[in-house]
């Protein structure tokens, strides 16, 4: 007998897809207003879902005493070699301290000096106890007026007609039940994409990665599928991490001032530049030239500092403390080996994501984006994602206050439900979900600049990658889900395949090497001034179309998208021909 998933319909004013950092805070801001019904649809449970599950070591985006928001914009711009949206960065930077204060008022512990001032770590960071930061945010969302949360529901597709969003469709990850959610506006806050490339630890610990393995690029994929414009996917993010555990290095580098040292004892810290991508690149070059492995030189720290590091890591990445204790040697006795991770697409660290305007509106009317899924503004970290959630919420309030002319769209969700049923009813195959995921990661690793190729790619390889990934889509259609848990895995894989395809086009379109390691293009190895622009893309019927747009700089008038009467996009920034 064939399986037929049951369907429940829900109605809300605002649907927030993903109850992570940006999503929870967006809900909280909408709740402060309180006039509109808000529903957060979350794949897991908002208490510990998203990037902040284990905790966070510091507030990394804060305007410290004597500095101004423009300083933060300048820092991000330099770090990304000019390819950022200064308008977005500025409005984000202006809200960082207020968001921080709000978290503190809701229970986040922040270190203060004897005068009651926050204790800073470098120019942009403050010290906290961030172990419970996500439960704090979740409580803020849960306690908000007119906000409800539906946990364990994986949203897979947006409902869009004539470039106007009117809801989304998903399924319960524990029981055979689909949800059709009608909404007047949608905030996309699903986070970025991990698991596109073969990971550092491809065996048992394959999910011991920097970015949450459960952030599969769903938001990008849903946006790409409905023709939303994407930007700068080619600025991949690669983190420099503690070997094996893939735990943060910043706590050691900044906390106890440990330097990067190669395998023959030379400090290479500043040899290759100090931009985020150059720190990864330097480590990669030291290794490929035979001077690895590389370390953070910690064997000079005191036992007291070591104890403090144990605690700091338990508050955000417990595996690192376990590794030190299990190995019988802590960082005071043994330098910490470091390595670059596999590449991720994550708009909280680089400029990848939805192309948005100053209200965080996307090019699909009624659809907003915030946090890691939103492009243009790197180095958001936690507080920047909060601010984006707030700005998007305010944009949504403006839209709803204008009123809207949504009519019923009965039946439009059926093809999506049919797809769920198709996978639930597919016949057994010798090709498993896991095999297709591994195939995708291998293709991306070998032909699109993964770890095994030292992050390097070239035009020839990218063409092969495109062809092979397209081939996987055919296999994908035949995958069988024995239950909704496997259906979840199938859709996570679908998200990743869609993101891979767009990423390949972006890597191919930027014919220069502006960011070492992040986009190490061996066919075009130099930086090229003709590429001081954004590489954007839209999926069309015959494939992915690349659009080149001019840089939005701080003296530029704020970028506001406009729509025509029929909801098609009228203005979304200039075009470079």
């Amino acid at each position, binding site marked *: 007998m064939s399986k037929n998933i049951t369907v429940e319909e829900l109605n809300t004013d605002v649907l927030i897809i993903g109850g992570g950092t940006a999503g929870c805070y967006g809900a909280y801001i909408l709740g402060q207003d309180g006039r509109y019904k808000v529903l957060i649809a979350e*794949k897991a449970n908002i208490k510990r879902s998203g990037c902040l599950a284990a905790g966070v070591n510091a507030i990394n985006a804060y305007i410290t005493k004597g500095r101004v928001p423009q300083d933060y914009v300048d820092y991000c711009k330099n770090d990304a070699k000019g390819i950022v949206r200064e308008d977005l960065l500025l409005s984000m930077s202006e809200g960082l301290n207020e968001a921080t204060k709000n978290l503190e008022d809701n229970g986040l512990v922040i270190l203060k000096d004897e005068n009651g001032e926050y204790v800073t770590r470098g120019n942009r960071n403050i010290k906290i106890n961030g172990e419970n930061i996500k439960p704090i945010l979740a409580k803020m969302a849960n306690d908000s007026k007119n906000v409800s949360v539906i946990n364990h529901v994986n949203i897979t597709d947006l409902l869009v007609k004539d470039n106007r969003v009117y809801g989304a469709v998903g399924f319960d990850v524990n029981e055979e039940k689909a949800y059709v959610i009608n909404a007047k506006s949608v905030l996309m806050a699903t986070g970025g994409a991990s698991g596109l490339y073969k990971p550092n630890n491809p065996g048992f610990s394959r*999910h011991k990665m920097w970015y949450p393995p459960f952030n599969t690029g769903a938001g990008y994929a849903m946006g790409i599928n409905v023709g939303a414009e994407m930007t700068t996917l080619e600025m991949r993010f690669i983190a420099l991490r503690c070997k094996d555990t893939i735990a943060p290095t910043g706590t050691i580098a900044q906390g106890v001032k440990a330097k990067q040292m190669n395998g023959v004892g030379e400090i290479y810290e500043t040899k290759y530049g100090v931009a985020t991508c150059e720190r990864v690149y330097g480590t990669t070059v030291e290794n490929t030239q035979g001077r690895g492995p590389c370390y953070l030189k910690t064997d000079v720290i005191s036992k007291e500092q070591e104890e403090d590091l144990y605690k700091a890591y338990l508050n955000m990445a417990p595996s690192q*403390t*376990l590794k030190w204790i299990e190995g019988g040697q802590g960082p005071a006795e043994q330098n910490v080996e470091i390595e670059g991770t596999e590449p991720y697409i994550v708009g909280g660290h680089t400029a990848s994501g939805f192309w948005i305007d100053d209200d965080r509106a996307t090019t699909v009317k009624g659809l907003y984006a915030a946090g890691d899924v939103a492009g243009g503004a790197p180095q958001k970290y936690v507080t920047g994602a909060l601010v984006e959630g707030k700005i998007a919420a305010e944009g949504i309030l403006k839209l709803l206050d204008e009123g809207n002319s949504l009519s019923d769209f009965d039946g439009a969700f059926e093809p999506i439900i049919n797809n769920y049923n198709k996978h639930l009813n597919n016949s057994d195959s010798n090709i498993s979900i896991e095999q297709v995921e591994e195939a995708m990661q291998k293709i991306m690793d070998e032909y699109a600049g993964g770890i095994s190729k030292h992050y390097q790619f070239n035009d020839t390889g990218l063409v092969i990658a495109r062809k092979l990934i397209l081939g996987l889509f055919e296999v994908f259609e035949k995958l069988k889900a024995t239950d909704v848990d496997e259906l979840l895995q199938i859709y996570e894989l679908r998200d990743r395949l869609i993101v891979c395809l767009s990423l390949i086009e972006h890597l191919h379109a930027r014919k220069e090497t502006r960011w070492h390691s992040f986009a190490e293009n061996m066919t075009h190895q130099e930086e090229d001034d003709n590429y001081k622009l954004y590489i954007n893309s839209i999926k069309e019927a015959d494939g992915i179309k690349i659009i080149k747009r001019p840089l939005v700089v701080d003296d530029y008038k704020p970028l506001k998208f406009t729509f025509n009467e029929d909801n098609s996009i009228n203005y979304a920034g200039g075009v470079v021909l």
Partner: protein
Amino acid sequence: MSIKINQDKCIGCRKCIEACPGNLIKLDNKKAFIKRDRDCWGCTSCLKECKTQAIEFFLGADVGGRGTILTFKEEGPIKHWIFSAGDREIRTIDINSLESNKY
């Protein structure tokens, strides 16, 4: 990096199932178990939910694990992280959640 749920200690309260950001923990015969242990991120959210210390966190051998386990217990603002090998406790690190990180 993964977890193992001690079936003798698990009381089937479902709190870990609810919290896991990867939806990896399921219930079988009124006891929780991790369905795909290779898919654990290592975030320890489940340890913090468990009131009976049934969940044991460990490093996979491929990232240096040799069998030591980490368990978690909360008493007021104090979080106890307990490291053990076999039945022998190696050490405990206590963290006061009202105090900030030094770094």
